[in-house]
Structure formats: C-alpha cells, structure tokens
C-alpha cells in the first residue's frame, strides 16, 4: 500500500513590514508515493514554501499536514526519515569525492555497503567514470547527477527537488529530468519538483500552479519515462 502526504485546509502567512502576506488559504492536496508532481508559478508565489510545508520542514499557520504510511496516520514529523532533497545549487560537499558524497547518507545510517551502493547509483546516473572526482572537477550537469544519486541512494519514499535544472543548459536539463523521473519511478518514490520550466513541469503527472494565494491542479495520466 502506497504512502501519501495529505495537506488539509492549509493556510500560510507571514508578517512583512507590519503587513500580513498570505501565501495560501485553505489549501487541500495529496502527494502519493510513486507519483510525480510539479509546482509552478511566478517568483514569490510561494512555491518553495509549499515544498517546505509538504516536507514537514515548516509548520503552516493553520491547517494540518498528515503522513499516512501503511494505513497509519502520523504528523509530518514522521516523514523526516523517508525524504530526500535535490537543490538548484547541488550542495555537494566540496572536500568529498563524488563517491563519498553519494555514500554520505548511507554512512550516516551506518550502512556497511555504503560505498558499493554509492558506486551502483553513480553508474545508474552515468558517472561511473567520475567516481573519484571532486565537485570542483565536475560540470553543473554532472554535479546534479551526483546530487540525484545522493538523494535516492538511501531509498526515500519521497523526493523534493527545488529547481533541479535551474542552473543547467537545455541539453543537460533534459538529461537530468530524464534521470530524475526515471530513477524516482524505478524506486517507487514520490517526486515533487518546484520549477519555472514548463518543459520540466509537463513531465510530471500532476501540476500545481500557484498564483495570488490560489492554486489550480492539473493531472495527466500517461508519463513517458526513460530508463534510469
């Protein structure tokens, strides 16, 4: 049975120069494991804030967030161990090689097979020849592939990606998108992508469009997936 995240009647606002700014009002949505989602909208619409609320890293002003796993409902705090992140700036640790960057979450969990698994994942993302290179020796696209491998290596149920192709050229962006969607599907991980790119957004099964505190949802049934 697939796990899912549910946001019920979520409102989120903050104070800016003594003025209340409302990002969302009475928002209801669900994120299901194994499905892909894109959050789009203009700058300042609250895309990243929505991502933070979904991942349980931020508390909504009002409303409730739930994480349902194996039929058991829990607060979003329980989600922490089952999620991975991918960032626009990659955020690899500069002093570690690609292999050690990917092995990092496994080592933290005390996985004795950390290096083997990391090697396997780097091969999956097409970097078997760059295993011992440090981030400064990799291109932007290659760094993001390492970041994807790092996010998926510990097999999380959900992946949250913030503008994962924002720093890449079109060719690299397409490659990264292919890998990201394929790997998530292969791992049966739910994928939530924040993006300005319509091309990337259109690859997701569901699209949330944010504007002026309102959102609209568009769902597509078919998803083309390349090999991971």
């Amino acid at each position: 049975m697939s796990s899912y995240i549910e946001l019920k009647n979520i409102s989120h606002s903050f104070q800016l120069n003594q003025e209340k700014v409302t990002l969302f009002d009475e928002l209801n949505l669900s994120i299901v494991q194994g499905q892909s989602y894109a959050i789009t909208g203009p700058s300042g619409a609250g895309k990243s804030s929505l991502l933070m609320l979904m991942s349980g890293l931020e508390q909504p002003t009002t409303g409730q967030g739930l994480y349902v796993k194996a039929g058991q409902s829990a607060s979003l705090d329980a989600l922490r161990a089952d999620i991975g992140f991918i960032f626009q700036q990659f955020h690899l640790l500069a002093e570690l090689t690609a292999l050690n960057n990917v092995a990092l979450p496994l080592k933290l969990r005390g996985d004795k097979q950390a290096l083997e698994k990391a090697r396997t994942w780097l091969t999956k993302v097409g970097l078997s020849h760059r295993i011992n290179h440090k981030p400064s020796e990799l291109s932007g696209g290659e760094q993001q592939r390492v970041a994807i491998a790092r996010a998926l290596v510990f097999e999380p149920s959900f992946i949250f990606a913030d503008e994962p192709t924002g720093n890449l050229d079109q060719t690299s962006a397409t490659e990264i998108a292919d890998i990201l969607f394929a790997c998530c599907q292969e791992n049966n991980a739910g994928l939530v992508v924040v993006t300005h790119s319509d091309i990337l957004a259109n690859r997701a099964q569901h699209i949330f469009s944010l504007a002026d505190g309102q959102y609209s949802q568009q769902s597509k049934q078919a998803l083309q997936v390349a090999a991971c």
Partner: protein
Amino acid sequence: MLIGNVKLAWHFYQQERQHSHQRLLRWTQGVLLLFIVTLSQSSASIQNYLDKNLQGLLGADAVLSQKHPLTAKQYAAVTALIDEMVVTQQIQTTLTHNGKWQRAKLKAVDSHYPLQGELLTSQSLQHQGQQTVGGPESGQIWLDARLFASLSLTIGDHILLAEKPFLVSRILQHEPDRLMEGHSVDMRAMVNAADFASLAFAADLVHYRYLIAATSAQISSLLHWQQKNLPAAQVHHKQGAHPLALFWQRTENFIGLASIILFFMAAIAIEQLAQVYLKKDQYFSAICMSLGASKATGMQVSLFKWLIALALLLPLVLLLSTVFHWLIIYWLQETFINLPWHWNIFSMLKTTGFVVIIFAVFHAPVWLALQQTSVAKLFISTSNGTSHWLSKVSSLLVLLGVVITYSDNGLLTLMMVATIVITITLMIVLSWATLTVGEKATQNISGLIPFALFMMKQRLISKSTQILGVGLCAFLLLFTLMLLKDIGATMASYQRQHDGNVMVSQATQSQLTYINRWAKQQNITIRQAKPYMYAKLVAVNEQSLTEFSQKPSDSLATFTRPIRLHWSETIPPNNHIVDGQWWRANTQNWQQISVEQEVMTDLGLQLGDWLTFYIGQQSFNFEISASHAFKPGAGSITFWVQMPAAALAHIQAPHFNMASLEVEQQQWPLLTNLWQKFPTLRMLSLKEMTDRFDTMLAMITKVISGFSLMIIVLSAVVILASLNALESREMKKNSIVMSFGFSQSTCLRLNVIEWLVTATITAVGAIVGTYIAGLLIYQSQFSLTYKPDFIWLLATLSTILLVVTTLGVYASRKSLRSSVRQLMSDT
C-alpha cells in the same frame, strides 16, 4: 579615486563591523597590542627613572670597587687622575640584639662622606630624614628603618657587633651612593671607619668602594688606567651601564620570551581568520573587476578597511594600556622607590608601529591573494598554492625575528621553541594517525562515530589546522599553569630534602673548623661542605669579557662580579659531564677548567677556549677542557666553574667553604652564639630562604597569572577564530545532513563527537608537550628533578576535554541553527 576607495572601505568596514571575523580580529589585535604597549611603556618609565637617578642620585661621578684596598701607589695614581675621592668599606655581617639576629650590609665611612648628594638620617621611624654631613661618631651605629624595626630597637639602645657594643644613635634614611651599588634589598647599617678597623674583620671579606668626583675626560683616563692596572676591579660611572638597568633589561627580556608565546598565538588566530577575509575580499575584488574596476581597487579597499579597523581600535587599546601601565608602576614602586608614572610617546609610537607591521605580515596572505585574483574567480574557485605557502613562510620568518630580538637566555628560548616544534609535529602525526586509523577501523561499524571520523578524515587539512591552533594554545596554557604550580612545590621540597635547613654560603677555613667542632658538640649534622675561592673572570681568549660577550644574560651579569671557583679531583657526585673530558686524578696539568653547560651557551664559550681569572690580585689562565651539568640526588651545592686540586699549589688566595646543616627546632637559639662569634659568617636559615623564595614566588605568581589571563583570552579567540573559518562549511554540512532526513540533535551529536576527538588529540598533544617542556626546562633552568604529577595531569586532561568540547559546541551553535531551507535559498 583614492578618496573614493577610502569611502568604500569605510562603508564596508561598517557593514562588517559586527561580523564575527571582524570582532575576533579586533580581540586578537587588541590583546596583543595592549600587552606589548603596556610592557614598552613600563619599560620606558623605568629606563627614564634610571637615567634620572644616574644624573642626580649617584653620590659620585664614578665608583671603583674591589675586594682589596688600593695600594699606596695605586691610591696616588688614582688621585692624580681625578678631583676628589672618598673611601667606604662594606661587609656582610649579622647584628644581634636581645636574642634576635638579622643579616645586614655594614658600611664604614669617614667624615668626608658623602662625596656628592644628600645623606639623610632621622631620630625616629616617624620623622622625615634630615641632611647629615659625615657618618656616625666613633662608638655609634646608624641602622636603616627595616633593620631597626626587625631588631625591635629604640634610639639609645646598644647592640653587639663582634662582641663589641655600639650605641644606636640615628636611623639611616638615604645614602646617595646606594644606587651605584646595584639593586639590593639588603638591610643596612653604618659605622665610623675607625671603629670598623678595630673590629678586625678578615681583610678578604671587606669590599672597598672608592667614590670619585671627576669630569668625563678624567673618567675616561681612569677607565684606561683601571683596565691596565686593575682589570679585576669594577668601575661604575655615569656613562656606563647601570647595574639596576641591567637587572631590568634581563627582566624585560624574560617577559619578552613570554610575549613571543603571545605572538605565536596571535599568528595562529590571524591565520585562521585570514581564510574568511580571503574569501570575502577576493569575492569583492572579483566583483569590482567584473564591473570594470582595476585590480588595485579591491586591494586598496581591503587595505584601507584593515587600517580603519586598526585605527579605531588604537584609542581603546591606548586608554587601557595607560590604566595597566599605571597599575604596574604602582606595583613596581616596591622595587623602584619613587618611580613616577610617565607616558612615553616615542616608545608608544615605536612599539605600535612594530606590532602593526607584524600584523600586516600576518595578514599579507589576503593581499597576496588579491593581487592574483581575477574575474574568473567568480566562476571557478581555485586555491593559491605558492603564494599561500610563501606567506606562511614569511610569517614564520617574522616570528623567528621576534624570537631572536627578544631572546635573553639562548638555551631557554631554544628549548621553548624546540618544545613547540615537537608539540606541533606530535599533533600533526596524532591527527593523521587517529583519523586514518579511526576511519579504517570503524569502516564496518555503524553509527555516528565512524561517520564523524570519516568526515574529519576527509577534512584532514582544515581539521589539523584547527587542532594545531587549539592544541598549541592548550599547551602554552598548561605549561604556564604547571610552572606556576610546580616551581614553588618542587623547589621547596627539594631544598628541604637535600640541603638541611641552614645553608652556610661563606665560611673561612677557621670558621668551618669551628663549625665542625661546634656541630659535633651540639649533635648537629653537616650535610655537605665544599671549598671555593673567589675568582673574577676578566678575559676570554685574551679578549675582555665585555668585548667577548655583549648579549645580556644571567651568566654575564653574574660574571661581572667575582664568582666561586671550586676545585675537585673527580667529578662531584651531583655533576655529570656534558662535553669534553674531566681531568685525571692527581694531574699536574692544573691550567684546565670545567664550565657549567648553560654558562657555556649563554656566553658562547667552547671547549678549548682560554679563560683569564683574577684570583687574589694575580691573573691565571685556564683552558676549558670540560663542560658539566647539575645532576640531582646528591646535594644541591654545585659550582659553575671547577678546576683541578693541583691548581691550589699555584694560586695564593683565601679559601672559603659552602656548607649545609640540619638544625633541630630546639637548637635554633645556638645560632645566635655562632653569629656573635663570627659576624661575617654568611648563613641563611631555611625560614629566610623560604621567605626570599616566597617573595620571589609571589612576584612570579603575579606575572604568570596576568600572563595566563592573556593566554586564556587569546586561546578563546583562537578557538573562535578556527570555528569562524570553518563556519560556513559546517553550516552547509549540517544542512545537508538534515536533508538526508536527520534531525538537529543528530547534527549536535556529530558536533560533540568531532569536538571530543579534537579535544582528545589536543589534550594528548598539550600534555606530552608540557611534559617534554618540563623535562627540558625544569632540569636545565632550575636544576630540579622534574616529577610530573600524573593525577594533576589527568585532571587537567579532563578539564581540557571538557572546556574545549563545551567551548567548541557552544561556539558552533550558529552552524547548528542551519536548515534545509537555507540550502534552498542559497542561490
């Protein structure tokens, strides 16, 4: 353009003023400047005081002093060269009154005394001194206030001196020629020269001082005559170095060694902070260049920003150093009577300039990197390999320069620097070994410890720098604290263990024979007795001593006076040979000598050098055939210079003895009789020894406490600086760890583990370093057996672990406040 850059620098300075890297740099610079400026101001005040004293309070234009009276021919020769001369005689003696005794310097003067300046005396302790012409009448004695009080006297009392009564008629307040006698805290008494002659002291114990009124030209002629005819005599004159000045210079040099340690720590702190400056200034410079500005702009802004920060720091530092300077002068007035507080602008400017230049050298890596920066830096970050290491080498050279400038005792400095090098090497090896072995050994174990070790190993270079910084601070702090604790305890227990409780420092042969008989009768144990004669070193390899060695040191200062020359057929049980060969027993080659190892180093002597000594009015040459050092466990009476017993057949000079006695509590009153019989016997009770020692210890405690405080402040700054340098990377690491689904508490635990590993390596390095320093320095500098207290060391280890970990974790709290959101917003 330049003004524009200054304005820009001012703007950025204000923006960054509250940033931690700016704050830490201000603290580092502030503490060091405060220490150095206060030190130089205090020093300048004392030099100024000494100069004024030389001009007005010397009681003579020159003083010629020696252990023998001038012969009639010599007297005539001197008086022909100068305007006027007055003779005084001095002897160390013991005065007794109503069962109390006190050692004092007894001076005999005639009616012509004083030659220059004012002799002040009074009728009671409360009265102000009145100007007095001529010394005491025959049968009278004048005592200084301390001696007067310590013997519980009143004016009109009689006291016994060599079993002859003297009427106490006045209190001595001030003798104008006293400063020329050098720094001394001896109690003092004055009698008429005619009485002195009737007391019939042994001629070889009397010190003769000829006060001379002369012009500069006459003094030059006198010096020329003295070097030719009386090379063993000492001449102090207004143009020459004042003995008190030499004393102060040595103290100053010792404090200089302490300041080297502070410089080392400041260098570590600035090196850590430079990493942050480098990143910020390089980024700013690259931005400027991408906007069409020249390379010089970034450089100028960085330089002006640094200068502005320093210029704004200076008023506060100068204000605080004025306060500390005042407090130090107040404290030093115990030693330098009426020492005025005096602000010396030139000294302040010179010192500040010197320290600012050193700061600039320490900060140079930032400017060197800016010189090499380019717009490309905005896209690719690369390290500046060669210039980075070049600047490190230049910092080391500057430190070396500071060490050489301040060094007084070459051996001590060498030992301190060697210990620092050993400690650094040890910590580098320990860091590498612990992290490599730790990481390998825990590869197949799950948990946070293997992960922490893995991360630390991956960041070996930056971690090692942090460990080195913290470790060196811990070592210096621990060593200072250990010195404070151990000098007193070890020294006192050692003295009590081996020396008995009464030390005879000078007894003639007949006095020693009497003491031996007396001790046997009274059932008193004589622990040790060793003979010696007085010898004045006048030349090394036919070069006068002042020409041969110009670097001030304790050894050189001591050799300006006659030293004790011991003779022995075999190596004394409490000595061992360091270099060369001791003479065979019954050797007929009597012109050889063994010199103590540290003296050899201080004076720059080598085996095979020829030393010329004046002994009993004659000169003798000796070749250095061996160098010896003190070996504990067989008594502490040891001599710097020793010769074969065969030399006695060739040298006619009085023999003296040093001895140590063990006197029971109930036998103490017996010493009074001994002193009444032999007033010139130089004898110290343990109480006096410990009193002197306690006074010295109190002074050392004050100095070391103040110094420790400086080190503690700088240690904290170094730890914070090293954290500051790694803060952004730590923050990122914590955020990434959290993005893997871990909580903040996991990051905190990781942080604690990292700091515990850091603290353990640091503590082990610091304790081993301290142990080595103790082993090297205690033994050679204090002739003491170094017995480290392992319980104390373990307690200190735990304290260091706790303090470093707590401070480290506390200071890392900012990096622990990181979040995944920060990674998202970091675009």
